[in-house]
């Protein structure tokens, strides 16, 4: 400990680039007049693009670690970070018109968004309890502020408050679990932890299970798995739609990474135990998410419950404890994030000054007024339901395959039966768009921002494109766990 070892900074280059750029954006934004706010957006998108370039530039062929083993850059981190940054770009651009209409087009929105993204990247690469926790808090604190971004909205403030209290509690639970692990194993480093767990299992199995339970609860809280899901619908509904778009897409990727880092990298010897817990969480999430979604009239709440059911599927992929399962869950997570960015993106397009589109009925007659946008949302809904040839089908297929591979056919049957229930409410959205006739004066109107439309179209068509050619993305996910 006496001499200071210069850590290898190269693996963290993307994070360093991003942090530097965040500072730049923050300063530049100070000197911009409101009408030039577009420049902040441009600079933020440039930040993310530069970060992606940095990720690709430093992408190792093998796993490398730095900072005394507490930071790791492996294939999984590379793929997930690129997905995180790429989706954040989409979120930023989709949000613009909404922010302008609601008079919250401020530079801080993008700075906070970038900070959240940085937090997620740290979570993805974190290989020590402490670093993962720091990343998580950076993400959460940025999100609290983003949810409350519209100061004048009471419902948004309520949502932010709720998220803050519950999030703090979840962090507390996670920290408690971490502290017990530290107490019984004496290390915070995940790699070292994995080394000492087998020995500890013999000496102190009860404390180990106790600590594991808190870790699993903390992860489920952050992911929104039943029974720790209560915050999800309220936050989705209360937050400004542009923030809902952000919460509903990118952080799921980081949550998945956190689950993998903690449960798989660190505690794979306890797989028998955590997979039991995940079975309960997964089945409950599938059941509650899909069934309660049927009763929703608010589109954001509907998507919230749909998220919960998708989390159930992601947990299904993790719980077999096999490489194919992890790859399937990773594929599912990325696909889910892409799909829901389309769904929320369409919802954002429907918003306009003085009108907050959030009910399912606000979509009625969309096929009449704007068939192309309706088709994009229909594709997103079918992808969420898992109807081929959309990519959602392959996501479900790969998870089911992983579950059946370990002889848990009954679990697969339960999962597909809840998928059928889920299909019902996705079909209802399509029904409203295509079959219902709106009042003539209430035809949904779409703003004509060409760049958003082009991006959204590409995003929506990618669901079909990836559905017909899922090999490449699936290959990356499999590579990450081989």
């Amino acid at each position: 400990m006496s001499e200071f070892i210069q850590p290898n900074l190269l693996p963290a280059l993307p994070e360093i680039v991003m942090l530097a750029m965040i500072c730049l954006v923050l300063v530049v934004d100070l000197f911009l007049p409101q009408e030039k706010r577009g420049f902040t957006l441009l600079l933020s998108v440039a930040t993310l693009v530069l970060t992606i370039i940095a990720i690709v530039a430093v992408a190792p062929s093998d796993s490398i670690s730095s900072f005394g083993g507490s930071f790791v850059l492996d294939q999984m981190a590379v793929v997930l970070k690129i997905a995180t940054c790429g989706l954040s770009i989409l979120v930023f651009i989709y949000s613009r018109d909404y922010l302008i209409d609601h008079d919250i087009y401020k530079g801080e929105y993008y700075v906070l968004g970038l900070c959240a993204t940085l937090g997620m990247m740290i979570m993805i690469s974190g290989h020590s309890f402490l670093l993962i926790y720091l990343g998580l808090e950076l993400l959460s604190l940025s999100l609290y502020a983003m949810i409350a971004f519209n100061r004048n909205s009471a419902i948004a403030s309520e949502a932010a408050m709720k998220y803050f209290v519950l999030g703090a509690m979840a962090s507390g639970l996670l920290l408690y679990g971490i502290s017990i692990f530290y107490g019984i194993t004496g290390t915070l480093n995940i790699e070292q932890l994995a080394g000492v767990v087998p020995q500890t299992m013999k000496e102190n199995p009860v404390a180990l299970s106790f600590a594991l339970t808190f870790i699993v609860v903390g992860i489920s809280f952050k992911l929104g798995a039943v029974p720790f899901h209560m915050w999800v619908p309220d936050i989705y509904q209360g937050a400004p739609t542009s923030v809902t778009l952000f919460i509903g897409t990118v952080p799921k990727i980081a949550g998945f990474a956190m689950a993998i880092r903690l449960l798989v990298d660190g505690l794979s010897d306890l797989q028998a135990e955590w997979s039991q817990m995940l079975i309960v969480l997964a089945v409950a999430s599938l059941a509650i998410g899909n069934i309660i979604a049927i009763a929703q009239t608010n589109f954001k709440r509907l998507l919230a419950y749909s998220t919960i059911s998708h989390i159930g599927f992601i947990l299904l992929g993790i719980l077999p404890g096999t490489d194919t399962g992890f790859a399937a869950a990773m594929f599912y997570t990325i696909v889910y994030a892409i799909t829901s960015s389309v769904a929320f993106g369409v919802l954002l397009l429907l918003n306009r000054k003085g009108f907050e589109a959030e009910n399912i009925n606000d979509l009625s007659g969309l096929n009449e007024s704007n068939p192309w946008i309706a088709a994009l949302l229909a594709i997103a809904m079918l992808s969420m339901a898992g109807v081929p040839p959309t990519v959602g089908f392959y996501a479900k297929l790969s998870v089911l395959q992983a579950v059946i591979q370990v002889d848990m056919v009954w679990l697969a049957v339960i999962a597909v039966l809840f998928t059928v229930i889920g299909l019902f409410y996705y079909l209802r959205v399509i029904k409203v768009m295509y079959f219902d006739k709106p009042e003539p004066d209430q035809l949904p109107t779409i703003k004509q921002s060409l760049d958003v439309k082009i991006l959204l179209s590409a995003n929506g068509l990618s669901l079909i494109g990836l559905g017909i050619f899922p090999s490449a993305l699936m290959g990356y996910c499999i590579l990450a766990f081989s």
Partner: protein
Amino acid sequence: MFADGLLLSLVIWTPILGGALVLFAGDREPSGARKIALAVSIATFVLSIPLYTQFNTDTHLLQFVERNSWIPAFNIEYFIGIDGISMPLILLTSFTTIIVIISSWEVIQYRVSQYMAAFLFMEGFMIGTFSALDSILFFMFFEAMLVPMFLVIGIWGGANRIYATIKFFLYTFIGSVLMLVALIYMYSKTGSFSILDFHLLRLTMTEQILIFLAFLVAFAVKVPMWPVHTWLPDAHVEAPTGGSVILAAIMLKVGGYGFLRFSLPITPDASAELDWLIITMSLTAVVYIGFVALVQRDMKKLIAYSSIAHMGFVTLGFFIVFRIMDGDSSATGSALALEGGMVQMISHGFISAAMFLCVGVIYDRMHSREIADYGGVVNTMPVFAAFMVFFAMANAGLPGTSGFVGEFMVILASFRASFWIAFLAATILILGAAYTLWMIKRVIFGEIANDNVRALTDINNREILYLGILAVAILALGLWPYPLVEVMHPTIENLLNHISQSKL
């Protein structure tokens, strides 16, 4: 081989790409959308003709095969090819789509391009379903075809269309997801999703029974068999004419095809063990649903129930083979049963299409499907009445029409299994005649019932064209079914040979 496989791919993808083209052409020029759609459907039909003319009838081996790796991670392949079972169904699909597009020419005025595109997409997906030899490819097409049909019923359907279309989608989906689990299970055993590999997979009885039941749910809903048939009358009644035609003529056949492609060869022992279940369900469909059809007041509902009864014959033919094989070692009887089922599928494709088109013709004029609103139509629409009576006779199984051939083959084969099965099956000839002809009597004949009927105008050339084509097809198949039987015979023989060997 390359050119062969390419041809089959073209038949699948031409309508799908054509559908996208029609969709992007948009509604500014509806007549343009119609013309493109017709051109695409005719092109597809022309492309599908070589599948018949160049088909080698001496072999059961798969022809026009194309096999490429598609998703290597799961060993999923783009693997297509046809044999004597699938080829006739593909031709039926490409043929029927042309009829549907002609029949919707003037009738559909709302969102023409979306309507036409939906049918072209469906055509491609259905042909893909019949050609796929990789089970995931099959599943993909199998599910994908639901989406356009869902929209067709939901957008252009009748008053209660939303209930009907959601019921249709959910019923079919719940059946198919269990099949998906079965497919993945077999993949975990073989490491491949190829249907041919599944055929060779050895399975224990328990596994076979569970897999058989999973397939049964999927295909029984699709056929549909009693007691999971209830979506069909709803869907038919609410669907626009074109939707009803495709639904009855082709989509139901996917279920029958599935039994032949999956259930029988993959789980022969379970099929033999549980054949009583299918036979009971089929006979119930024939007898009970026949009586239900008798009391219908809505013409489309009546024809829908008649479809269920006729499809009961198909499944009876497919699953009676085990009883025939038990009693009689020669394969002729069982081949007769399977071929009878297949002929019945093709024939029902023509006849049900024709019946629904006939109802569509008078519905377009009177906007009513109630039998009670009609009467004496022959006085104002003599040409139409001639067609409808002819199709009704075919539906009732009049010798000389295609409806007779399949039913006669199945009944004949059933006699080798059991007199009583054959007896109950034969009631379809009586019941079918009763409900069809009674409907004809009430709608077509008699005094002119009301002023609306008095004001009817007879069918125009376009309507004569498509009804005429169907009449010719029904007669041709009825008088000379040999070309069809010849095509499928080697495949059926091989299938029988395959299922007679235990996989335990």
